[in-house]
């Protein structure tokens, strides 16, 4: 049964994250939060549908840029080391 102590205890020990390429997936929640907060502060009037759409577009564009940067850096690394 969940209680307050159990929930608090979950914050006293780190979870397991390996040093693997899949750990890069942790950037996506961060990018989503940045997109949501940025659009919430930037939009003059918050209409729910428009706000969500613009946040999604910002999230996708920043994610796309990050993925492109990863690909380019990997290619550079491969060219230098091969």
């Amino acid at each position, binding site marked *: 049964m969940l209680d307050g102590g159990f929930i608090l205890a*979950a*914050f*006293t*020990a*780190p*979870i*397991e*994250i*390996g*040093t693997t390429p899949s*750990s890069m997936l*942790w950037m996506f*929640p*961060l990018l989503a*939060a*940045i997109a*949501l*907060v*940025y659009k*919430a*502060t930037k939009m*003059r*009037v*918050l209409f729910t549908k428009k706000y969500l759409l613009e946040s999604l577009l910002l999230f996708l564009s920043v994610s796309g840029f990050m993925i492109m940067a990863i690909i380019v850096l990997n290619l550079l690394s491969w060219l230098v080391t091969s």
Partner: protein
Amino acid sequence: MADTNTTNRLPLDKGLWLITVGLAAWIIPGAGHFLIRERKRGMILFAVITTLFAMGLFVGSIGVVDWVSGRIWFYAQILYSPAVGLIGNITKGGGYPVYGRPCDVGQIYTCIAGLLNLLCVLSAVYMAYCGRGEMIGHEQEQDNA
């Protein structure tokens, strides 16, 4: 209801009002917007920034808030709320060690939450300075009419 119209305030009143909004936004993320009647915006900011900070603490444990060995990180983390100082006080003895990738992810998440809250503080103070809450209130009333 609080008067959010800043245009008719005396300079001292206006200054105090802006400081109040800024402090409220720092103490509780989103509270600054809530004070200037931007309630929807305030709730979104509170939910997103608090979730991000809590995720950082969950991933890396409260050990990522360490003002002894991670002072630069701590300066960004405390922008989330002065309550982060209490967490730093708990962890200063080194009883919550964290290393490797969980430490990286936890520190990045908590620091970005703090920096996003700084953006919200500036946004709330700027909106209070411009009387934005009042203006949008009128716009909403016009939309409803």
